C-alpha cells in the first residue's frame, strides 16, 4: 500500500532518537568500560531501591488524588451542553500552555519560607513546613498531571449515551446508583488511560522533586540525572529497570482494561 510510505519519517525519527539510545542504554548497562559483559551495574542499581519505592509511592499518591479530583469534575463536564464542554476543556488546557519548569518554579515561589502562603499561615499562627516534603512533591505532581486525568475521563464519559443514564433511572437507579452501576463501569477505559497517563510520568519525572522535595526526597528520575555524570553505567541500569517496571505496569493496566471494557 502506498500509504505505508507516509510513516517513513516517523520511523527514521524513532530509530535515531529512541531505538539507538535504547540500545546504548542496554549496552551501557551490560558492559563495563572495557566492553566486557557484566551484571554488576544492575546489582548496583538495586542500591537505589528506596528511591525506586519512594517514586512509585509518590506516583501512586499523585495518581489517586488526580483520580479523586478529576472523576466528579469529568462527570459534570460530560453532562453539560456541548458548548460548555468545549469551554471547560479549554480552561483545563490553559495551564498546559505555560512551560512545565516555569510552573514548578512558581510553586517554589508560592511555598517557600516567607513566601506568600507561608507568611499568611504564620500570621494566623500556623507554622508548618510547606516545602521539602512528600506533600509538596505530590502537590506539584497533581498540579502538573491533573489535566491528563481529566481529558481522557471526560472524553470517555462524554461518549456514554445519555439514554443509558435515563434507562438506568427508569429501571430504578437513584442518582448515585446511576454512577455506580452504569457510568463507572463504562468509564473504566477512561480511568485506565488517565491512570496510565498520570502514573507513568509521575514515577519517572525529575526536577519537581528537586525543586519541591529537596535533597531528602529524591525520586528515581533525579537519581538517574545526578548519577549519569559520574557513573553512566549504573544510571543506565536504573533507567532500564525503571522502564521495565513501567512496562509491566502498563501491561497489567491494559489487561485490566480489556476485561472491564467488554462491548464498549
Amino acid at each position: 500500500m502506498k500509504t505505508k510510505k507516509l510513516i517513513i519519517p516517523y520511523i527514521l525519527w524513532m530509530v535515531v532518537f529512541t531505538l539507538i539510545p535504547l540500545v546504548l542504554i542496554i549496552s551501557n548497562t551490560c558492559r563495563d568500560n572495557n566492553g566486557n559483559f557484566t551484571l554488576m551495574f544492575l546489582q548496583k542499581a538495586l542500591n537505589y531501591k528506596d528511591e525506586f519505592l519512594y517514586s512509585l509511592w509518590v506516583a501512586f499518591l499523585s495518581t489517586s488524588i488526580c483520580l479523586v479530583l478529576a472523576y466528579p469534575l469529568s462527570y459534570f463536564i460530560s453532562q453539560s451542553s456541548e458548548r460548555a464542554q468545549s469551554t471547560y476543556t479549554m480552561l483545563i488546557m490553559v495551564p498546559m500552555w505555560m512551560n512545565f519548569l516555569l510552573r514548578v518554579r512558581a510553586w517554589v515561589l508560592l511555598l517557600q519560607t516567607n513566601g506568600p502562603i507561608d507568611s499568611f499561615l504564620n500570621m494566623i499562627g500556623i507554622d508548618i513546613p510547606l516545602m521539602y516534603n512528600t506533600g509538596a512533591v505530590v502537590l506539584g505532581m497533581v498540579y502538573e498531571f491533573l489535566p491528563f486525568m481529566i481529558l481522557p475521563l471526560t472524553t470517555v464519559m462524554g461518549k456514554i449515551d445519555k439514554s443509558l443514564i435515563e434507562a438506568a433511572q427508569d429501571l430504578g437507579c437513584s442518582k448515585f446508583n446511576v454512577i455506580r452501576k452504569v457510568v463507572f463501569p463504562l468509564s473504566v477505559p477512561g480511568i485506565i488511560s488517565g491512570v496510565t497517563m498520570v502514573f507513568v510520568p509521575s514515577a519517572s519525572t525529575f526536577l519537581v522533586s528537586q525543586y519541591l522535595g529537596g535533597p531528602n526526597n529524591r525520586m528515581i528520575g533525579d537519581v538517574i540525572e545526578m548519577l549519569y555524570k559520574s557513573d553512566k553505567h549504573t544510571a543506565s541500569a536504573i533507567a532500564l529497570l525503571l522502564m521495565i517496571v513501567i512496562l509491566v505496569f502498563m501491561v497489567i493496566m491494559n489487561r485490566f482494561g480489556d476485561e472491564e471494557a467488554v462491548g464498549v
Partner: protein
Amino acid sequence: MEQKPIVSLRNINVKFDGEVILNNIDLDIMDKEFITLLGPSGCGKTTTLRIIGGFLEPDSGDVFYEGKRINGTPPNKRNINTVFQKYALFPHLNVYENVAFGLKLKKLPKEEIKARVTKMLAIVDLKGYEKRAVSKLSGGQQQRVAIARALVCDPDVLLLDEPLGALDLKLRKDMQIELKRIQKMTRKTFVYVTHDQEEALTMSDRVVVMNNGKIEQIGTPIDIYNEPANAFVADFIGEANILDGLMLKDYRVRILGSDFKCVDKGFGENTPVDIVIRPEDIEVTSPEEGTVVGDVTGVVFKGVHYEMEVKVGKCTLLIHSTVSSPAGSRIGMRVSPDNIHIMNKLFPTPYNEFTAEVVDSAEDSPVVTISVEGKELELENGYYPKGTILSIQLPPDGLYVDGEGVGQLTDVFVESVIWKGAHNEIILESDERKWIMHSAQDEQVATYVPICFDFSKAVVTPVNTQEDADEN
C-alpha cells in the same frame, strides 16, 4: 379494557427556547389499553412520553398517576418503565444482566430474579440468549431485550418510544404483532409513540393524533380513519381526497360544482368546509350515471386494486377501484352519503384579513408604505393619508414563497400543508397571526420560510380617516 384512567395529563404546557412544544395537552390513558401517540416528527409525541416517564417536567400542568399528582417524582420512583428509541441496552452487561438490572435494584432474592428473568426472556422469545453480549444481537433481538428489561420490573405502564423505527419493514411487521401479543398476555398499559400511521392503526386500542404540540383527535383506529376530525388527521391517516366544499344546508354539500347528499348537519348554511373522501369510497360509473364526471389521466395496477387519477376541472382525484378504466376515458363518479366526511376548515376564514397602518405616502402617488408586523411594505391601491388604518383582505393566492429565499416577512412557520386536489392549502404562522396560502409548490411542515405579498389581489378599505387619526 377497564375504563379507568391510570395516567392523566391536565393542561400540560412545555416550551423550549421560547418555542411551544406542547400546548395544553389533556389526555387520559386508560388502564390496560394500548394507546398510540401518532404524529409527524416535531409534533410533541416524544415530549409527552418523557413527561409521563418523569424525564421532563412540564412548564405548567399536572400529571396524575392513579389519581395522585406525580409532578416532580423522579423516574426511578414511578411504576412506569420505558423502552427507549435506540433500546439503550447497557453495553457492559450481557442479556441476562440487562434484564435483571431493575430487579437487582429492588433487592429481590436471587432465585426470584432468576425465575422472573427466565420467564420474561421466554415471553420475548429469547430463551438461551442469557449469556450473549448485547452488542452481538440483531436489531430485533436487542429490541426484545429492551422490552423484556422494562416489562420484567412489572410496571403498570410501559412507554415505548418508536421502538420499531430502526428495524427493516419485514421485521417491523412481525414485531408489531409480537408487541400486541405481549401486551395482551401481560395485561399492561402500553403507551406507544410512532410517526407510522399504519403501525398505529394495526396495534392500538386508541390513537392520539398530534400535530404542532396539540392533540388533533383521540379515537379508535376505525374512528380516526373513518371520521377524521379535520383535514390534517385525514391527510395524515391513510390516503384521502381532501377537497374544498360548501355546506349548502343540513345534509347537502356542494363539491366540485355538483351537489351531494351527506349525513352531516349543524354547519349552518353556505359554510365553506373541508371534505374528505377516501379513494376506495369513490364509485366509478358510466358518465351518465355519475354525480360528477371526470377524465382518467393515469392508471396504476396495485395488486388488490387499480389506482386511478381522475381530473375534474382543475382538480385531480385519487380513486382505488377493482375495475379499471383506461387513461383518456371519461367516467362518472358517485359517493354514498355516509362516505363523505365533512369537517370544519382548519383556517377560520377563506382569506387573510388584517389591518395595517399607512406610515408614509405622497398625495401624487398611488403607492403608500404600510407597516405589517414591523416591516414596511409598499401597497399600490391609491392615495391614503399617513396614519390611516387600512383593513386588508388578501386571498390565499395573494401570498407566495419566493424561490430565491427572500421574503417580505421572514421566518414564517409552516404549520400545515394539505393537498386539495388542485393546490396545496398551507397554513403559516408569523409573529402575530396565522396566514392561509394556496400554492402549487409543496413546503416542508414545521420549517420556516420567507413569504411575499401580492397586494394586487387584495381588497383594501380604510378603517379611519386622517381626521380620526389626528383626533387620536
